[in-house]
């Protein structure tokens, strides 16, 4: 009671909620294992569909786009599952009953989604380059990691918001995809162009890369602010 009246600071609320999600996930590894296997399967599908016609073709100009398609679909899978636990045992109601800052709830959920996506990417992206585009030089790895991070932050932020909405709807899996892909389109466009520029190289690749990265970062900032503002309405509904 004494603690309640004093209230938890927003940072502590955030850490508690994030800790809950991470503990829950690392005890079962449900989400991470399914995301990883799914990512590998997408790579296999790429391999099978490209191998027939493009055995000796240069897929470097395509590889940035293909990589982002892989990330989008894998993220969708993770986001769909991210509210499964909350829904099953009425945990979301519990969280809402507790005197928590709604912004902290959003940030904690977005951070846990981000971490799961990043863990998946750390394993799946090297695999992708191993199978599909092994010509990537070591010097571009840092640039690729940067654009991957920026893109994943935005997708986690928007995706968490949309997953909260679709968790309470009929046909939620399909609906999340229907909402998610158009709304992240600008981010996808900017990140894919930056990634392709980094992989393909050329004299002026840095211009395209930095422009794409800058736009992706700006989109992240705007969308995270909008989602943070609107989340209060969504989770209260």
């Amino acid at each position, binding site marked *: 009671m004494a603690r309640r009246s004093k209230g938890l600071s927003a940072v502590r609320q955030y850490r508690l909620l994030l800790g809950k999600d991470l503990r829950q996930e690392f005890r079962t590894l449900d989400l991470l294992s399914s995301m990883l296997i799914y990512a590998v399967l997408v790579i296999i599908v790429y391999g099978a569909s490209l191998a027939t016609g493009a055995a000796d073709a240069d897929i470097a100009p395509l590889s940035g786009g293909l990589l982002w398609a892989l990330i989008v679909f894998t993220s969708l899978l993770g986001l769909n599952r991210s509210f499964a636990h909350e829904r099953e045992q009425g945990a979301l109601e519990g969280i809402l009953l507790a005197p928590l800052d709604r912004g902290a709830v959003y940030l904690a959920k977005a951070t846990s989604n981000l971490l799961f996506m990043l863990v998946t990417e750390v394993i799946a992206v090297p695999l992708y380059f191993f199978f599909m585009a092994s010509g990537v030089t070591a010097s571009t790895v840092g640039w690729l990691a940067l654009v991957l991070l920026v893109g994943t932050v935005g997708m986690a932020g928007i995706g968490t*918001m949309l997953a909260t*909405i*679709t968790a*309470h*709807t*009929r*046909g*939620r899996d399909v*609906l999340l995809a*229907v*909402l998610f*892909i*158009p*709304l992240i*389109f*600008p981010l996808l*466009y*900017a990140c894919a*162009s930056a990634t392709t520029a980094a992989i393909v190289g050329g004299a002026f690749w840095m211009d*395209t890369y930095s*422009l*794409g990265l800058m*736009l992706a970062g700006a*989109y992240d900032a*705007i*969308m995270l602010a*909008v*989602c943070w503002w*609107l989340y209060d*309405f*969504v989770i*209260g*509904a």
Partner: protein
Amino acid sequence: MRWALSDSNSKRRRLPESGQWPDKLMVPAIIAAAVFSTAGFLDAMLRVGPVNGASVNGFALIGGQVVDHVQLLSQKIFYFHMPVAIVSFVLLVFAAYYCVRYLVSRELRFDTCAQVAMEVSLLFVILTMVTGDLWTRFEWGVWWTWDPRLTTYLILMLIIIAYFILRNAVDEPERRATYCSVIGVIAFVDVPICFMITRLIPSSLHPVVTRQGGMTGDMAAALALCLIGMLLVGFVLYRARFAQVRVDQRVQALKDELALFEEEGRAGAGSADVWPFSDAPLAAEPHTQPSGED
């Protein structure tokens, strides 16, 4: 007394009202829409000359210039394509405005406004797509190209369609209204950014289609006529659809009230069938009722 049951809720649902003042403008608006659209059509087809520098194969003399028939007709698409696209944007602005108003006020009629604006907007988006496709087919020789403007417009269309899929997937009116309003606001923020990003990032494969050269005075006049006509058509469609949805909601609310009223009458007056109907209130307080002694 009659509303005892519904009063026990925090607030009784008001009946959705319908028939506000803009409905009085409907008849003049319909006439004006027909006049302006027809005038714009005739002006664009018969009077206005083609864009300077249009290529010529066959011959026709329109507006003092010689042009071929295919080019001539495909250029006329522009006078409808652009106004329709502008109307779709105007309606989207209104939809976003109503979404914000719903989120602020929590009044369901703003959600209905946003829904109807989105519906009419989707209609105009589809019209824009159809006219645009005709244009790309005849002018550029392909049905579709990943030009920035086309791409962003396609994304816009997909977001609007997603809005309606979301609407259908939620049952409770308040929750549906909130979710849809949030998506409406996000979409409104998203679309200009989308447009900007596809414009800014250079893409060697898909050149930006630039439109050079100004419009002559008579072209602008035809365009303005069509634009006014299309705006009026948009307004008329919006009001007509709004009135329809509103009356539908009103009937539904009345039905609910009636069902509630009947239920109350049955539950509250347990012996209503034997109680003299003459001066007794229809659903009196239970403790004033003689319950079952007779």
